[in-house]
Structures are given as C-alpha cells and as structure tokens.
C-alpha cells in the first residue's frame, strides 16, 4: 500500500477529522501535497473544498516540502520586549532566508511562532524541537547551526 493510503487508513474516524488527518499526513511526509487533497477528501468522505479550507487555515500546515531542519522562531510579546528582532535580523542575514522561507540548499526552514512558553528566558526559539533562550545577535546563528551542517 502506498504510504499515503496507509496513513489515511488509520485516520478514518467517524465523524471524520480533517485537521487530525492533515497533521498525520504532514507528520509522515513533511508537508501536505495539495494534489493529494482529493485523495484525502475521498478517504474521509468529505469534499475537496472542506479539506482545502482547513489546509489553508492553519499556519502549521505546509503545502511545500520543508527544509531538513526546522526553526520555530518566537516573535511573541516577551521576546519582542527582549529585542528579539535584532537576533532575527542577524539570523536571517546569515541564513539568507526570511521568515516563512526555506534556505536555498534546503537545510533550514525558518518559521515564526508566537510564543514557545520560554518567556522567562526570552528571546526564544526551537530548532528541531530543541528549545533555546537568552541568545543574542552574535550567538543565535551558532546555536542554530550547531551540529547541523
């Protein structure tokens, strides 16, 4: 069975849960290929537009393949209070990629989030699920690249 079909098989609940299914697809494939929407819809017994509508609503759901490493950079209020935009500018410059983009070589995807709950150590970011805080414009890039060629 094709991997997509195997994932969809597991997601067939009653009533169907579109978001949960899209998350499962993304977890397995890294993103949701928009051309798979009809297959996903058919599997759930809902319409294409229902799936498309959900896919377009949530910031987490991506329709293009992500980079190898995922940076979730916090632009929440506490981090803003700690001048995080300066570190962000430094990071964007060294990665040559802005929020919402993937580096040309496909190594990093830089996404923004509003708060990681690490506000007591703002500014904060998460790289591949690993939390970082209290970085500065001069340390941020090193943290991101450490162990990630």
């Amino acid at each position: 069975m094709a991997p997509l079909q195997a994932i969809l098989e597991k997601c067939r609940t009653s009533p169907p849960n579109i978001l949960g299914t899209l998350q499962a697809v993304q977890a397995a494939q890294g993103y949701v290929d928009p051309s798979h929407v009809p297959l996903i819809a058919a599997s759930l017994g809902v319409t294409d537009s229902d799936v498309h509508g959900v896919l377009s609503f949530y910031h987490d759901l991506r329709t293009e393949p992500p980079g190898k490493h995922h940076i979730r950079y916090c632009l929440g209020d506490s981090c803003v209070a700690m001048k995080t935009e300066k570190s962000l500018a430094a990071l964007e410059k060294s990665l040559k990629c802005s929020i919402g983009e993937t580096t040309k070589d496909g190594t990093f995807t830089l996404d923004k989030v509003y708060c990681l709950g690490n506000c007591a150590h703002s500014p904060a970011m998460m790289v591949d699920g690993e939390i970082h805080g209290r970085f500065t414009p001069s340390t941020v890039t090193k943290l991101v690249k450490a162990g990630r060629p």
Partner: protein
Amino acid sequence: MKRFYVSNDISALSAGADRVAAALSKKGAAVVRTSSRGAFFLEPLVEMDTSSGRVGWTNATEKDASKIVSGKGAQPVDKVSFLAKQTRFTFARAGLIDPLSIEDFKSRGGFRGLQKALGMDPQKIIDEMKVSGLRGRGGAAFPAGVKWQTTKDTAADQKYVVANADEGDPGTYSDRMIMEGEPYRLIEGMAICARAVGATKGYIYARSEYPHAIRKLRAAIARATEAGWLGHKIQGGAFDFELEVFVGAGAYICGEETALLESLEGKRGMVRPKPPFPAIEGLHKKPTVVNNVITFASAPDILDRGGAWHASMGTEKSKGTMPLQLAGCVKQGGLVEIPFGVTLESAIYDFGGGLPKGSKFKAVQVGGPLGSIFPEKLLKTPICFDEFAKAGGILGHGGIVVFDQETNMVELSRHFMEFTAEESCGKCTPCRVGSTRAREILEQIRDGQGRPEDLETLKDLSDTMKMTSLCALGGLAPYPVLTAMQYFPKEFERKPKTR
C-alpha cells in the same frame, strides 16, 4: 546514595539543565528529573534532599558538577525569597516530583481530590466548586461551578470535558508547566469535572508549540489509564472517563473556546456565535465543559480541602490564587502563585526583582497580546479581575510582560495589530479588515508618514472593533494600542521625518 534533582521543564532545558544533568551522571551521581519550581532565573537549579529539606545550587553549569557531587555550597531552597513569599497550591508540587511518576504524585496528595469525588454525589462536587468561588483562569474569569452546573443540567446521550491547553498568549507558560511538570493534576481535575457533569470522554487541546508537554501528557494518560485513574471503571467504580490529547496547528484563535471546538472537530478554527454556549452545545453539538488547564488543575485541591478553604484566599470577587508569569524585561522571570490582591508593582519588583541592569521600566502589559499597556503610574493596581477592569485592563491568563525604556511604543502597537491581523479568524469585518487597516495606519505613523487625522481614524476604528467584534480577539485588540496612545501620546505625534 545522594540523589540530585534537575528539572526537565523546557525553560530549564533552555538554560542548560540537560547538560548539567549529564555532567552529574557522568560523575556517577543519581539524577532524578523533575518539574521546575518556576524560578526560571535560577535554572539550572540542582536540588538535593537533606534532613532539613531541599537544598540547591542555582544557575548550575557543567563546571559545577564536582562541587555539587561533593555536596558543597548549597543553600536551602525554601529560603529563596522568590519562592518563600508565594502561596502555592496549584504549583505546590512544582520542582518536587518526577512528572510522570504516579507514586511521586500520590505521595504528595495526588488523586486525593478525585478519590473523594468518586464517592460524592455529582451535585455535591459542583456545590463545592461553587463555594470555592473559582473563576476560569483562561481569561474570561467565568465561575467554573456555574459552567459545570449548566452542563450537568443539560440532558444528552454524550457529554465532553475539554481542557483548553492552547495557552496562546505570548508571555504565559503556567499551563505548560502543569502539563510538563504535573500532568496528573490536570488529568485529576478533568476527571473530577467529568464525574460531576456526567461526561465520559475528554480532550486536551494542546498547542503544537509545546511538543514536550504533548509527549508528557500522552505518556501520563497511558500510565494513568494503566493505573486505573482513567478509562473503564475508574478505581473499580462505575465511572468511565477516556482522555485524549489533540494537537493544535498554529492558530491563536483556537484558544477561543468555540473556535477550539471547531478545530477539535477537525474544521477551520472559526469562532461560533454564542449562544449556544459550549456548556449546552459544544463539541459535536453535545454539552461540553471547556476550561483552562489551571482551572482544572485547581479542582483537585478544592475537592480535597473543601471549597471554603479556597474561598478564604484572595479578594471578595477574585478567590484563590493567581499564577502570574513574569516575562520580558525582568530580572527574575518565572512563575509566581499568589493570592489575588497583590499589586502589580510588588509582582514586578518584589518577585521579579525589577529590571536588569541598564534597563529602566517603561511599560508593562498584563494579560497577553490583547491586554492593556500600563505605565508606571498604574503599578499600584492590585492584581484581581475587578481592579484591573477598573483600571482599563485585563488580567487574562496572568502573563506579565515588562518593557524597558528602549521600547518604541508605535512599533510595539504595530506589532500587536499585526498579531491580530495574522491571527484573526476572518469571520467578522471589524477584526478581519479593521486589524489590517489599523496595522497600516500604525506602520505609516512609525515610518513618519502619520497625520493627525490618522490618529482620529485609528481611535474611531478601534472603537468600532471594540464594540462590534464577534469575539474578544477583535474586541480587545485595540486595548494595547489605545492605552499606548493614551499613556505615551508623544510617540504617536511624531512629525513626518524631513530628510
């Protein structure tokens, strides 16, 4: 052999707790990973048992490993004034237990509330909640007992209990601490609620930004089920309650309870008009209690010690304690659980230790990105729902973010409006279009293109957003901007730059 306690809360990890724990292990020490005290400015905090209580090494690094293993240089943790001055019950076990150990949890009073509830008439449980005066900690401060009563009184073949663990307000992390540090407390509170209202199925809607919390919750649910605290015939009785974690997908609006329910159903997180209220028509149109994590986490102690005990804390209309979360430009960031009534100034200075060297206080925002901006002169405001309302602010989920003198209030206001514009669900016009228009105006002002009449337009628009938005996102979004304009008017009057 000595045992050392090192937190695995993400804010401790961010400060290097993993590295310290590894260094200690390498030295042959037994390390137990626990929740965090919430005194994050002290993390990594390594603790050790002594006959006179816990002692600890603050801001430990790998280099301190030898010293720590030798047991030297520690100070009593209870004496740390940041902690000593707090009144903790929701976070009483913070930093003391292994988050996933049911034994640890039970040895410190865990599941006593639920055990009691299992033997009680459901109405008695709700009565106890009403006596406690507990108001929701998610922002709207609605009396929890009244909500539970409504769901209990609505007949249906299926009812649900949903924990709002979306904790969307930047600058807050108390829900996260419970989920990571003491997941059984949340489970216990939800089970008590389910038993009271007659629900058999529960969900924890957790934000995707908290992967650690999600992992721990899932593990805790599995263990609690195995131990008979969840699932079929709980503790051998007739009560069934199944619990599941559902993960959000990056949408602030899904913290709003009706959007949350839509999202939990797998749909677009669009706000529903109320009525019908979720307590009557919630998940899949069935009666559903939606409460904040902290609200649920307060229930076990209320059941265990009695509603009257809870009601004896706090102020007339704000009973109990409030877990405040100090963030932004403060020296001592962390969780502060105190009875209502303490002033904002005390929170920032007595607990937060004021601002770091080189920084001067400029403003503080309480209650998340929709909360008002308070200047120095409002620091005497006591922290409670009503006093805050009187002062034109909200307490929200208890987030306190301090800004220093370098903060550009126009840019900050623009940031808030951008947040609203990006997080607006898009259902209602004042918020959907208004937030973008307001952001544009602030952008123009920031860039020196502002005109006096733009401020008038902004005020007029803000009023329409406040008064006519469908939910509180659009309805509160103007507050930080309007208060910034009110208290820092000069910054908004900058003349066009001449260059």
